[in-house]
């Protein structure tokens, strides 16, 4: 097995490359009919060939492959109609400002048509230029595709960009397609009336895939093809082991629990990426352990983790705060917590009695960890001891972490439990 390691790391590199390439991940869509891919392709292709204007929205939660589908469609169209389309890409996170957006459109148009772009051009000049270009392209039977990613962010403010784009498309001479991509399902409701009436209400909805689809996706991603440049024997061994894992009930259980939390493609990809990264380099194959380990690392509970990291004094303060909340005290601050803490220490005479400066440092640690926070933003000039605070952990989480903590003193557990049953 001396040669296993380089082959295995080669295979790992191949798999990682696949998982990080959205084009490969979604390439299975190409062959299957009646998907969003085929619908979008038909829509755009027909408006290119029939020389008409069109607009469409792709909606769905993040990580379902909206942008990947757009990329695939564009790639195909560029092959089929090499001269008839030019693509303008905008992103709502970067170009939600109207002036910035028109400038970016003008820049990309200039780049596409080998014109020189003037950085000094005013926003009016740019708008005029865009309208001229739309007309010219229409006359030359060339379709301009506007891809607006994060479409909902363009709908903030006056929506001047959307209006001027869609309004220019109302004329007969222009020839353009606007494709909006958004993770807000109500993105079309955000539009103003004047914009909405100019928008053709075509929407393609993307939903997280079903279990069968996901299984197919996992197989597509992990099964190595024979032409991947690795030794044929290794590929055979690898694939047969992998199919054994896939048919295992345990693996289906893992997939199920993963998809219960989040069934989007990006989550599956993250899971597979971890599993591939945990590949056992000694044997050189993916094993069930790597999948199990990947799942457990995906299912961490950050709050519980940071509750486990607390020192005894910090736990005391949390329990004091919880007791105050249980007494239905509407608001409390550090001084009232200290009062509660002192009364506990006087009653039980534990060894964990510290001065208030030490307690205040522990209190600040809790603030740092964001397990507690200040109740309001007012009173910034007030001393921190007097600002009202609140707990950010539930009593169930606190109870569980006290139970799990092996160093937690019995008194603390008792203090926490007693008030719950009294």
């Amino acid at each position, binding site marked *: 097995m001396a040669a296993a390691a380089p082959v295995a790391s080669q295979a790992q590199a191949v798999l990682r490359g696949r*998982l990080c390439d959205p084009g490969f991940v979604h390439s299975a869509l190409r062959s299957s009919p009646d998907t969003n891919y085929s619908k979008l392709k038909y829509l755009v292709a027909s408006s290119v060939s029939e020389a008409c204007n069109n607009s469409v929205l792709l909606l769905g*939660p*993040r990580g379902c492959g909206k942008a990947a589908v757009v990329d695939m469609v564009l790639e195909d169209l560029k092959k089929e109609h090499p001269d008839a389309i030019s693509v303008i890409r905008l*992103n709502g996170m*970067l170009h939600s400002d109207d002036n910035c957006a028109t400038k970016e459109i003008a820049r990309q148009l200039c780049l596409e048509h080998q014109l020189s772009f003037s950085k000094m051009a005013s926003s009016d000049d740019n708008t005029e230029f865009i309208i001229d270009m739309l007309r010219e392209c229409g006359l030359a039977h060339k379709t301009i595709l506007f891809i607006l990613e994060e479409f909902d962010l363009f709908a903030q403010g006056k929506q001047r960009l959307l209006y001027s784009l869609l309004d220019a498309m109302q004329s007969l001479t222009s020839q353009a397609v606007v494709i909006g991509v958004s993770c807000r399902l109500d993105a079309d409701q955000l539009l103003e009336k004047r914009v909405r009436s100019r928008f053709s209400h075509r929407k393609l909805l993307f939903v997280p895939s079903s279990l069968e689809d996901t299984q197919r996706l996992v197989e597509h991603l992990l099964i190595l093809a024979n032409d991947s440049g690795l030794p044929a024997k290794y590929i055979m061994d690898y694939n047969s082991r992998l199919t054994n894992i896939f048919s295992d009930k345990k693996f289906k259980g893992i997939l199920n629990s993963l998809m219960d939390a989040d069934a989007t493609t990006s989550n599956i990809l993250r899971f597979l990426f*971890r599993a591939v990264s945990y590949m056992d380099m000694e044997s050189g194959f993916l094993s069930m352990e790597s999948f199990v380990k990947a799942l457990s690392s995906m299912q961490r509970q950050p709050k519980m983790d940071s509750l486990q990291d607390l*020192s005894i004094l910090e736990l005391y303060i949390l329990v004091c705060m919880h007791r105050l909340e249980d007494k239905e005290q509407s*608001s409390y601050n550090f001084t009232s917590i200290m009062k509660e803490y002192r009364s506990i220490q006087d009653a039980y005479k534990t060894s964990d009695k510290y001065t208030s400066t030490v307690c205040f440092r522990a209190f600040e640690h809790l603030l740092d960890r964001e397990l507690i926070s200040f109740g309001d933003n007012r009173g910034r000039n007030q*001393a921190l001891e007097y600002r009202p605070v609140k707990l950010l952990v539930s009593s169930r989480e606190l109870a569980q972490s006290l139970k799990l903590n092996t160093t937690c003193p019995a008194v603390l557990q008792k203090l926490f439990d007693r008030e719950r049953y009294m």
Partner: protein
Amino acid sequence: MSQPVTPRRTTRSSAGSASDPASPSKSRPKSTPRRQLIPAASKEEEGEDERSAINALLEALPGRRAQASDLLRLLAPAPALPLLLYGGAATGKTRALLLALRHIRPRPRRVAYAALRSLPSPRALFASLLSQLSPPPSSSASSRQRVPDKPSDFVAALRDALASLCAQGEAVYLVFDNLEVVRSWDKGGQLLALILRLHDLLRLPQVVLVYVSSATPDAYYSMTGSVEPNHIYFPDYAVDEVRDILMRGHSNPKLYTSFLSVALKPLFRVTRRVDELGAALEPLFRRYCEPLGDLKAVPDESTKRRLFEHIQPHLAVALNETFSVPMRASVDQCKDGNSGVKASTKRQFGSRDSLSTELEFHMSVSAKYLLLSAFLASRNLATLDAALFDSTGGSDNHKRKRKSSQASMNMKDTMVEEMLMKGPGTFPLERLLAIFQCITSVSEDALNDVECPDSMMNGSGMTGLMSDVLLQLSTLCNSNFLSKSRSCPLEGAARYRSNIDEDLALKVARSVSFPLSKYIYRR
């Protein structure tokens, strides 16, 4: 491309110095104790095989075995999904990451490190990243590059810089440290979304994004659900790991082990942060070694017991301190020998709340009185001033006590709660001066001794104290004993508030032998 293949070693300090000098940021390297606790492993890396490189990495990161191997696996061959390292302060996140980036194979072409805490604005961040990525301009004439301040320009510039770097298929790592501070920035939400979605925006597979944050991943969920990176959790060190870390680089490990077996557990109940523990343990160890003549000697059982008895009172004091800055006096005492120390520690040990009776700083008598009157003005209700400071000095206010019914008791309880919630009250200057005058007139006889005999105005004892009272007041404000709030729109004059707690006020009162408790209104 004749770029050097070795990655730029960017530590907290060098990353800051590599940033654009024109940017307003001045990076401040983090305080050093942690650095000293974990001395850098200075290994030559050339020609080492992979396994020993990993071993060296694990050696340099005690207690972080799982995290380090996770890091190496998730970062290593170039196309990789974004990664988020999170965990509490002082858990070795940045250090583990920077060391891992040195050890990964194939070597990254470039590592750009941006600590957001030292880059206070988006513009500074953009400038720092771009200057780390693009080669420094050869001629000074072209160095006046425009720093992009819009996100769109920045992403375009970043893509250009990265595309030329990744042309040969080598990896570039972008590290964003202290991600949690961005949330409190002006328009921080937008910048955070931009930083977290850089992977989608750039679409360059050879660029690996790494985020380091002390806030948990759920702190970054925004309304439209931003992309979640893969994450690695750095838990706080367990007690054995802390011991391993503290043990590193000690000349006499046996002695230090016996010290830690005594001192670490109790301190660990208070705080689990290595940096704080290190700072607290250092002076304690010096104390621990005091009875020993030879620091190199291996202690036997009887010495250990003797040392334990010696350290125990000091340990009890250290538990109740957050910072121990040695006073000049106490340092002198240390030098003189430990006769005085014993007495003082005994006293401190006796009173568990460590109410050391004497004040630890010097202050003029009139400033002390002013501080006391400010404390009283903040604690007491203004309406009760007349009762407390009447001609008899407020000693006979028990006359007005009525029998308390249940209802009034309840009302008092709620009032106590309210006082606890509201904190010290504010007061105008006039009230402060009035109280000041009252309490100085009460203790007139005590002041007669210090008054100058040839003073022309020795009719009343307080004239000496009343001089320069505004100057004293501003001194107290500057030293943060009092705080001055903005002027009230109705009254116009500024209002003050005392920031000292009752313990300190009592100490001050004792030092001028003023009966403070008589004047505090207790419900």
